[in-house]
């Protein structure tokens, strides 16, 4: 018990504290043996319980606590723990990073490498990336390159969905009944005897997120009465967890028969290529089938067949590019001598510790930034849904780029203001010199390491390109000044 209680005591007082308690306990034990009383043993145990309160007093003593808090906040471990805590809060607050997982993990479709979207090219506004439904009926006859093709309404609509007394406004997209077959996905919950398309009026499938958040993951949801905007509807299934289409804002897929869209209605298209067929072959074939059908030449470059996985991961490429540019600028700053971050020459171990801390801190910050941008900014363009535009996609990219610059700048500044020997944050800023008299004498701020390892002088105004901060190492003769801190 004393051993466990001693963990609470601050390290510098632990040995003496334990010695005192063990001596008292040894004496009491001796007396208990002499008196041969079993109740004495119980008394000794109950006395040891008080050791925890005594240890807590040591830990929670106000002066010690303040000193410990001030010291702890300056250590490199504090920064890393704080960043890890931020990351964990972000993960839990976002629901375990659903978009990141959807982007990075293999999609929950059968043979995802053959899933593609088909859209028009050569336009700026993504609302025009959709195609007329008449093209889909032409492509459906195209068995050479496509194993299956399904259309969905381009514009998701906010609809009031009511199931079993609960109501919620959810994004809704109308899809063809063969959509899940094209994706090669099995429903998480489905009816034992599926309804035929002919008898299926206002049949809807819920996304996993809508089923869980809006309808409390009700296992009997398929048996309950449903309505969409006041009209009767039937729930025929719940999608698996990681399947989200066309965006994660869409919670309901409204089943429609094939050819239920009007010929000129703009729709989005997903398809599954036959094994061995490339995207270029598919584009050529599909364009040719349109040309044959309408009787006019149709440019092959007007059709784009884009693998689904690439389209989903497209924003990461942009983010990666922005990050590379920022890292290049940072490396240039370090290389040019503008920021002198080299640690004291105390061997490979100290240098390794210095750079490891810098790399870990920067990597954690960038990870937090990436996760926050992906999860919480307006979603970058993923599917041609007509809701997002290039401007929105660029907005996320701009936020990430500016965030990268800020993160790297903060990381560099934080590293510059740390002791080159012990990595603790420098403290006790002191203004030296007279402001505005730069040509007469040195003026700036002096920071000192609380352990007495050195001083950092930062000039008030830069007079040349080189690092305005100068580190001065202190030798052992300075130690008495810092002893007892």
């Amino acid at each position, binding site marked *: 018990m004393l051993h466990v209680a001693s963990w609470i005591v601050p390290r510098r007082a632990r040995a003496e504290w334990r*010695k*005192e308690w*063990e*001596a*008292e306990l*040894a*004496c*009491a034990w*001796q007396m208990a043996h002499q008196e041969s009383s079993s109740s004495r043993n119980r008394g000794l145990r*109950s*006395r*040891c*319980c*008080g*050791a*925890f*309160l*005594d240890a807590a*007093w*040591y830990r929670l*003593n106000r002066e010690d606590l303040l000193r410990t808090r001030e010291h702890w906040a300056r250590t490199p471990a504090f920064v890393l723990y704080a960043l890890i805590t931020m990351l964990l809060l972000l993960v839990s607050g976002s629901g375990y990073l659903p978009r990141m997982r959807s982007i990075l993990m293999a999609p929950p479709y059968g043979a995802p490498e053959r899933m593609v979207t088909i859209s028009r090219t050569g336009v700026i506004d993504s609302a025009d990336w959709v195609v007329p439904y008449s093209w889909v009926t032409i492509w459906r006859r195209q068995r050479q390159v496509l194993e299956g093709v399904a259309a969905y309404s381009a514009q998701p609509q906010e609809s009031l969905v009511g199931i079993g007394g609960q109501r919620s406004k959810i994004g809704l997209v109308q899809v063809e009944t063969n959509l899940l077959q094209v994706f090669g996905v099995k429903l998480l919950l489905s009816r034992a005897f599926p309804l035929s398309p002919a008898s299926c009026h206002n049949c809807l499938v819920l996304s996993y997120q809508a089923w869980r958040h809006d309808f409390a993951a009700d296992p009997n949801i398929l048996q309950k009465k449903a309505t969409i905007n006041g009209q009767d509807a039937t729930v025929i299934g719940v999608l698996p967890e990681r399947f989200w289409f066309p965006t994660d804002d869409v919670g309901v897929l409204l089943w429609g028969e094939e050819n239920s869209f009007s010929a000129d209605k703009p729709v989005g298209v997903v398809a599954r290529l036959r094994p061995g067929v490339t995207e270029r072959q598919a584009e050529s074939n599909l364009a040719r089938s349109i040309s044959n059908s309408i009787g006019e030449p149709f440019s092959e470059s007007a059709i784009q067949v884009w693998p689904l996985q690439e389209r989903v991961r497209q924003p990461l490429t942009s983010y990666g590019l922005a990050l590379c540019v920022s890292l290049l600028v940072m490396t240039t700053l370090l290389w040019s001598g503008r920021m002198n971050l080299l640690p004291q020459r105390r061997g490979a171990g100290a240098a390794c510790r210095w750079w490891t801390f810098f790399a870990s801190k920067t990597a954690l910050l960038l990870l937090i930034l990436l996760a926050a941008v992906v999860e919480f900014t307006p979603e970058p363009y993923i599917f041609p849904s007509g809701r997002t535009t290039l401007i929105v996609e660029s907005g996320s990219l701009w936020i990430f780029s500016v965030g990268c610059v800020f993160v790297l700048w903060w990381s560099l500044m934080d590293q510059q203001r740390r002791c080159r020997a012990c990595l603790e944050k420098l403290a006790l800023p002191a203004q030296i010199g007279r402001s505005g008299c730069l040509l007469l004498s040195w003026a700036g701020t002096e920071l000192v390491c609380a352990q007495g390892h050195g001083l950092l002088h930062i000039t008030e105004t830069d007079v040349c390109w080189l690092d305005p901060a100068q580190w001065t190492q202190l030798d052992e003769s300075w130690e008495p000044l810092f002893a007892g801190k």
Partner: protein
Amino acid sequence: MHSPVKLSHTSALILQTISQGYCYGFDVMDVTGLPSGTVYPALRRLERDELVQSKWESEALAEGQDRPPRKYYRLTRLGNGTLAGAVKRYPLLEQLTPEAKTRSR
């Protein structure tokens, strides 16, 4: 320099016990009947306020009794003055603790 320290009854009782010659922590617990979770934090506070002073007994003494050396507490001059004031405040304090016979230092 030191403003008069106002003692709680528990702290006053512990000071009185120490002044009577019970200078070890466990002995204070035995005499006062207070638990260790009360006595030891109070001793830390009294030492912080410079009312008591702690010291380790000599190794020779401890070896002679075949046990490790213990830490004992003694009242300081300030502690004596504060105890005198506490006795005036708690008149029954003097009667609560017997004087130590063989356990004093």
